[in-house]
C-alpha cells in the first residue's frame, strides 16, 4: 500500500497522472535512470523481503535512494542537490509516512504527527489541540489520506483553519 499511496500521491502532487499510471500499470520496478524525489515511488523497495532487494542491499549497505538524494550531482542535469523541494515537503512527508501518521492520529500523539504539525507550521503550544483534533476526526483524515496524502494534508490544513478549538488558541495568542 505504501507504494500505491506514493505512486498515487506523487502523481496527483505533480499532476503527471499519465506517465505514472502507465508505469504503474506495468508494475515496472525501478530499473532505469531517474532522479528527484519521485524516484522513490518507483523503487521496488517495498518488497523488501524479496531476494532482489537483499541482493541490492548487500553491497550498498542500504542505499535507499542514494541517487535520489545525491549531493550536487550536476552533470545529470537533473538535481535538486539532494534536498526535498521546499513547497512539497509536507506532502512528501505525508506520502511516505502515511502508515505511521495514521497510527499517531489514532492514538492522539506521536513523533510522526509532531513532525507533520511542525512542517505545517503549527506552533508547539497549539500542537496538543491539533493532535486531539486529528484523533477526533481520524476516520475522515485517513479516508482523505487513502485517496491521496496531499488530500489529507489539505484536509488537515482546512481543519486547522476552521476548527474552533485551534482557531481559539490562535486567537488567544
Amino acid at each position: 500500500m505504501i507504494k500505491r499511496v506514493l505512486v498515487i500521491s506523487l502523481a496527483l502532487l505533480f499532476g503527471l497522472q499519465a506517465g505514472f499510471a502507465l508505469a504503474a500499470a506495468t508494475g515496472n520496478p525501478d530499473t532505469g535512470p531517474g532522479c528527484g524525489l519521485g524516484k522513490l515511488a518507483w523503487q521496488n523497495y517495498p518488497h523488501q523481503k524479496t531476494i532482489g532487494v537483499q541482493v541490492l542491499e548487500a553491497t550498498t549497505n542500504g542505499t535507499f535512494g542514494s541517487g535520489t538524494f545525491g549531493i550536487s550531482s550536476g552533470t545529470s542535469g537533473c538535481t535538486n542537490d539532494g534536498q526535498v523541494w521546499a513547497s512539497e515537503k509536507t506532502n512528501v512527508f505525508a506520502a511516505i509516512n502515511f502508515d505511521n501518521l495514521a497510527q499517531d492520529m489514532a492514538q492522539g500523539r506521536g513523533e510522526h504527527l509532531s513532525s507533520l504539525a511542525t512542517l505545517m507550521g503549527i506552533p508547539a503550544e497549539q500542537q496538543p489541540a491539533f493532535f486531539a483534533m486529528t484523533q477526533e476526526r481520524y476516520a475522515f483524515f485517513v479516508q482523505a489520506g487513502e485517496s491521496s496524502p496531499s488530500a489529507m494534508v489539505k484536509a488537515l490544513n482546512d481543519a486547522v483553519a476552521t476548527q474552533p478549538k485551534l482557531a481559539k488558541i490562535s486567537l488567544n495568542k
Partner: protein
Amino acid sequence: MGFRSHGLEPRNSLRFIFFCCFAAVLQLSTVSAGTPAPTDPSYLRELIERARAAHLADEREWHVLLHYNRNLFGGFTSMQDDPGFFMAPEGKTNPQAELAATLTKFFSDELVGRSKQPAQCAFVARYHWLKDKLQFDDRRLPPQPCERFWRWFNEFNAETISVIFPTGFMNNPASMFGHTFLRIDAKGQTPQTRILAYTINYAAEVPPNAGPEYAFKGVFGFYPGQFSTIPYYLKVQEYRDIENRDIWEYRLDLTEQQVRRLLMHTWELGNAYFDYFFFDENCSFHILSLIEAAEPSIHLLDRFPFYTIPVDTVRLLAESGLVGEVVSRPSRSTLVRRKREAMNDEERAWLNRLIRDPAALRTERFRSFSVDQQAFILETTSDYLLMRGSGGGAEGEPFREKNKSILAARSQLKVPPREIPIEPYVKQPDLGHGTSRIGFGAGWRNDRAFEEINVRAAYQDLLDPDYGYTPNAQIEVMSFAVRHYYNESQARLERFSPLNMTSISPIDSLFQAPSWTLNLGMNTINYGSCQLCTNGYFNGGVGGAVESTLLGRQIFYAMAEVEADASKAYEDNYRIGGGGTFGMLTNLTERWKLVASGTYLRFPLGEKSDDFRWFVGQRFSLTTNLAFRIEYNHRSHDNDVLATLHLYF
C-alpha cells in the same frame, strides 16, 4: 541509483523529463554564472608563492580535504577516484601541484567538477581554508556568490551532527555488521521532530538488476560509492520499520565552525566518488573522513588500516570525547516485544486474538477492560500489524486491512498512549566488547596436553557476551587457532575458519523467524588410525528455537543439517551426510553464559560413517574485554577440554 552509469531508456524518458523540473531553476542560476572574472596573474603568482613558502600543501588540513594518504613510495595518493575532484591533472598524487591548480581555478568562473560550478563553489571547503590561510584580498580575487551552495547549506539550518548506527541485521549478509551515517541536526529540532533532519549517507551505487557478481564487486571496490542527503524519516522507515533493526543515535558535540567545515566538505564530495570496499573503505570509513574534515586535528582514519567495522568507528568517536547524548530508537519488533512483556497473561491473550480477528474488539469481554488497557492492547496490536504489513507487498495486505479496524477503534479511546520504558534489543553498541579477540588456552585432548593461541578478526560467537550485539547471533570472520601438543616438535594449525555464522531466533505466537547456521573451515580430527589429521568442512543447517522460562531463561533450538568433510582420513578422502543438532543457550548470570549442544550426523556418501558430537561451553566475563571460558568437545573416541582466557580489542 545507477543514474550515471546507465543509458536513458525511452520508456523512462517521460519520468526523466518530469523529475528534471526539480532542478531546472537551480541549473539556470549556475549556467548563467556571469561574465568571466578578470584574472589577476600577478596576484595568482603571489598566492602560489606564499602557499609554497608556508608549506600549505604539507598541512594536515589539505591532506584531509583531498583525502591524501601516504603511499608505499613515500609520496601521497588520494583515495578519491573521480578525476573531476582534482584541479591538476596529476592532482591525485601531487598535493603541491593540486594546491597551485586550485588557486588558479579560484580566479576563474569556469564550471568545474561533476556538479558544474565555479571552483570556489564546487570546492568551497578548500576555498575557505585557503582564504583563511592566505588572507585573500577580495578585490584582487573576487569571491563567487555560490548561491547554490548557500541555499543547500542554509536549508539544513544545522546545529550539530549525530552519528546514526542501525544495528546489525542477520538476515542480510551486507548488513550483518550494521551501518553508519550522519544526521544533520537542525536548530530548534526536538526529540519529536528529529526525523525531519537530513542525513549524510555513503553507499555503493549498485546498478539495478545486479546479479550474483555484486558480492564480489562490492567487496573489492568495483562499485562507486557516493554521498547523498536522504531525509532521516526515510532511513528510520528503512531500518526501524522494515528491517526491524534498533537504531542508536550518537549526538556529537561539535562547534558551529566544525559543523560548517563538515558540511562544506560534504558539498565537495558531491563531485566525487570513492570505489566502495565492503570491508575497508566502506560507509563507516568515509563517515569518519567527514568528521576529520570537521576537525582535522583528530586522527580517526589512521586507526583503521585494514578494515572498518561500524561499531568500532562509533567506539572510537566516543573515546575521542566527541560524543554527547546517546539515545536508542527501538525497532518495531522491539516495541512489540517490550509492550508484550509489560502485559499480563489476559492482555497477551487478547493481543493474539485481535491480531487474528480484529472484530473481537467489539465483544463485551474486551470492552470490560479499562480504557487504558484497551488502548494499550490496541496500540500493541497495531504495532504488530504494521510490522507485518510494512513494505507494501501483497503478502502484507491482510495485516494492513486489519490495522485499519484496530486504529479506527483506537481513535475512539481518548486516552494518551501508555508510556513504558522500551529497552532496546541490542544494547548500546559502543559499550560492548571489542570486535577482535585473542585467546590463550590450554587443555587436554584425550590424554595429551596442549597449549593454544586463538585469534579472531571479528566479531561475536554464541558464548561471547551479548551486550551491544544482536543476542544469540554468531558471526565469526577469519578465526584460527594454533596448538602445540605435548611431546610434538612443532605447533600445528588446529582450526581455521573464514566464516562461521549462526542465528538463533526464538519462535512464539508472534515471531516466526527461522534459526540457521552456516560454517566453513578446517579443523583437526582423530579418526580411525589417522591422528591429528586436517579436515575441511562445510556445514549448514536450518531449524527453529523456543524460549523457555522454566529455570531462569533458556533458549532451546533444533536444526536439520547437512555436512561435507574432506580429509585423507576418509576412504576416497571425503564424506557427505546429514543429521541434526539440538542445543540450549542460557545466561546463568549477567556474566556467566552456558551453551550445550548435541549433534548426530550420518554420512552415506564417501566414507560411510556416523558421528555423535557433544559440546558444553561456559563463559565467565571478568570485565567487558576480558573473559574466561571452558569448553568440552566430544566426538567419537575423541575428547577435548579447553580452558581459554580471551581478550577483546
